[in-house]
C-alpha cells in the first residue's frame, strides 16, 4: 500500500467561535482520488481552508499529517510549495494583477523551491498557451486582472489552469463543478483526469454527484455536521443522488439541519 499523503485524525475546527468540524478522520494515499460529499454548511469548505491554512479557521483538537509532517504549523505558502493545492470554491479577484503575472510569480516561486530554474519569458508563454488551450481558456483573458469580471465558469477554469501549473501532490477541489455548464464541466473534468497520477492524490469536494460521473473517485465520504458519517466506493454517489443526505442523519447530526439548504 502506498504511503499516506494526508492523515487527518480526530480533527476539530472552529471558526468565528463556532465548532464546525467535530472529530474528522480521513487518510488519503498517493494515487487515490477521494470525494467528500455533503449538504450545504456541513463543513466541506472549512476542511478545505484548514488544509490550505486560511486564517480564522482554528484547529482546536486533532492532527493533520502531510507526508508525515505536521501540516498545521506550516504557513500557507510552505504548504503550497510542498505540493498542496486548493482550487477555491470562490476564487478571489486581484485587481491590477494579470493572470499571467500571477501564474508566473507562483510558478517561479514553486520552481525555485524545487530547485528548478525560473522559466524565461518565452518558455513561460509557450507553456501558458499549451495549458490554456487544454482548458479552452482564451489567452486574451490571461492579460486581464485575476478573476476580475470573470464568469463563474471562467474563474473555475482559471483555478484548474493554476493547478496544472503548480504540479501538486495533493489537489483539493472545492466545488469546482458548481456553476459550470455541461461543456465546461467536461473540459474541467478532462483537465483533472489528465492530472491523475500514481504519485498524486486528489480530494474532490462536491455537493452533487455530477462531477463524479466524469472524474470517478476511488472513495467517497459523506460529511454531515462536521463528521464523516459514511464512507464507501464510487457507488455511494448514486445512493446520495437517489436518497439525498437525510437517511444518514443520526440523532446527534441533526443540530444544524435547519441551516442546511436542500
Amino acid at each position, binding site marked *: 500500500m502506498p504511503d499516506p499523503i494526508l492523515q487527518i485524525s480526530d480533527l476539530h475546527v472552529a471558526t468565528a467561535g463556532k465548532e464546525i468540524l467535530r472529530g474528522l478522520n480521513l487518510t488519503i494515499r498517493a494515487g487515490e482520488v477521494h470525494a467528500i460529499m455533503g449538504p450545504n454548511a456541513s463543513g466541506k469548505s472549512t476542511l478545505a481552508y484548514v488544509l*490550505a*491554512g*486560511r*486564517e480564522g479557521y482554528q484547529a482546536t483538537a486533532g492532527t493533520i499529517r502531510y507526508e508525515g509532517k505536521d501540516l498545521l504549523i506550516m*504557513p*500557507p*505558502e510552505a*504548504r*503550497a*510549495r510542498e505540493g498542496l*493545492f*486548493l482550487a*477555491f470554491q470562490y*476564487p*478571489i*479577484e*486581484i*485587481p*491590477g*494583477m494579470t493572470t499571467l*503575472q*500571477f501564474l508566473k*510569480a*507562483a510558478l517561479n*516561486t*514553486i520552481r525555485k*523551491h524545487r530547485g528548478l530554474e525560473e522559466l524565461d519569458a518565452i518558455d513561460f508563454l509557450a507553456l501558458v498557451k499549451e495549458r490554456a488551450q487544454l482548458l479552452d481558456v482564451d489567452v486574451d483573458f490571461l492579460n486581464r*486582472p485575476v478573476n476580475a469580471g470573470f464568469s463563474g465558469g471562467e474563474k473555475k477554469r482559471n483555478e484548474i489552469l*493554476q493547478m496544472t501549473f*503548480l504540479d501538486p501532490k495533493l489537489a483539493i477541489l472545492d466545488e469546482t463543478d458548481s456553476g459550470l455548464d455541461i461543456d465546461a464541466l467536461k473540459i474541467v473534468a478532462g483537465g483533472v483526469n489528465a492530472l491523475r497520477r500514481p504519485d498524486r492524490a486528489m480530494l474532490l469536494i462536491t455537493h452533487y454527484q455530477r462531477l463524479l460521473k466524469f472524474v470517478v473517485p476511488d472513495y467517497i465520504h459523506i460529511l454531515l455536521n462536521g463528521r464523516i458519517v459514511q464512507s464507501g466506493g464510487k457507488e455511494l454517489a448514486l445512493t446520495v443522488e437517489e436518497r439525498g443526505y437525510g437517511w444518514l442523519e443520526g440523532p446527534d447530526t441533526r443540530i444544524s439541519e435547519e441551516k442546511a439548504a436542500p
Partner: protein
Amino acid sequence: MKDIGPVADLYRTELSRFEREIAGTTPAWMQQLRQAAGTRFADLGFPTTHHEEWRHTDVTPIVKTPFLTAKRGPDIAKAELEPMASWVGAGHLLAFVNGRFSPSLSLLKRLPEGVIAGSLEDSCVVSSGLLEAHLGQQAQYDDHVFVALNTAFLKEGAFIYLPPKMVIEEPILVVFASCANGEATVSHPRVLIVAGSSSRATVIESYVGLKDDLYFTNAVTEVVLGEEAVFDHHLLQQESRAAYHIGTLAVHQGRNSTFTSHSLAIGSTFDRSEVHALLAGEGGSCTLRGVYAATGRQHVDIHTRIEHAKPSCTSRQLYRGILDKQATGVFNGRIVVRADAHKTDARQTNNNLLLSEDAVIHTAPQLEIFADDVKCTHGATVGQLDRDVLFYLRSRGIDLEDARRLMTHAFGSELIRLIAQDRIRNRFTELLSRWASPSHSESLPA
C-alpha cells in the same frame, strides 16, 4: 505668513547677487517679471501650518535650511545620466543639472520646421514675444510663495513650442538632475510648453537625484494648450531621498483641448506637488492620474485644483497613494465650477493603501460649485492590503513579503497601465516595482 526670518533674507541676498551677475543678459520684461515676483515673495513669506493650504505640510525644514543657489553643476558624465534618459529611446532630450541647461548632456534632434524644444534662455533671442506672452501667466505667483520664488530666479529652463496642427509622435524628455556635492543647494527649474491649436505631443518631465544629497528643487511648469490640442504629460519625481521637492504644474486649456497627465512620485524626503488646470474654453478635457508612494519618514503632498470656467468640459482625477512605515501623505483635490460652466462633468477619486500602522494619509475633496446642471463626484478610500488576496497568493506558494510586494505594485499598476505609450508605461511600472521591492527604504532611486 509674514516674518520669514533669516533664510528669507538669505534668499533676498542671493537674489540681488543673482541679478548683479546676470545684469543685462535677459530681456527687460523678464527682469521686470523677476522683480515683481521677488517683491511678492518677500511680501508673502513662507507659509506655516496655520495656513489652510499648508495645514498638513510643514515647510519649516526648508525654511530653516540655508540652501544656496546651485552653481553650474559639477560636470557630470553622460554615463551618469544615461540610466535616467536612455529608457525613452533615442528621442529628443533636454538635460539640466542643478537647474542649468546642459547642451552636452542633451540630445537635440532635428525637429520639424517651426517646432522648438530647447533651452528657454536660448529661445529668448528668437521667441521673446512668445515667452513674454506666456511666462508667469499660468503659474500665478501672486498667492504662491514658492512660485514667486521660482519666478524671481527666472532665467533658465526648458521651452517647448508646437505650431498649430503639428503632430510629434516621439516623446520629448526633460530631465532635471540634481547633484549637490555636499553643499545644500536650491534650484528653480522652469518649463514652458506652448502647444498650438490642433497640435499633438508627449512630454516627460523627470526630476532625479544623482546621489543621496540634500538639496531643494522648486519647480514650476506652465502649459498652454490651443484649441483642439492634445497633450500627454508625464511627471516622474525621483529626487534623492534627502531632497526637498516642491513643484507646481499650471495648465491653461483652450476650447476642445485634451490634457492628460500621469505622475509618479517616489523620491525625496518631502514632496509638495500642485497641479492647477484651467479649463478656459468649452469642451475641454483634463485628466490627471497620479501614483505617490512613500516610506520611512517621507512626506508627500498632492494638491490639485481643476477650474471649470466654461461649459461642457470634462475632468477626471484619479490618484493612488501607497504609504509605508512612518510616511505621511496629503491629497487635496479641488474642483471649482464657475457660474456659467454648465454641463460640467467632473470626477475625482483618491485611493490610499496604508502598509503600516504608523503611516498617515490626509485626504480631502474640495468642491466649489457655482453652476447648476453639473455632474461632480468625488470619492476617497483608505485601506490595507486585502487579507483574502494575501491568502490567495500565499496559497500558491508566494511568501508573505512577496505577496505584499506584488499587491502593492498591482494597486499602483491599475493607474499606470493607462499610460498610452509603451516605453513610458514600462518605465513607470519598473520604477514602481523597484520601489515596492523589499529594500526600497534603503535604495536610491536610479
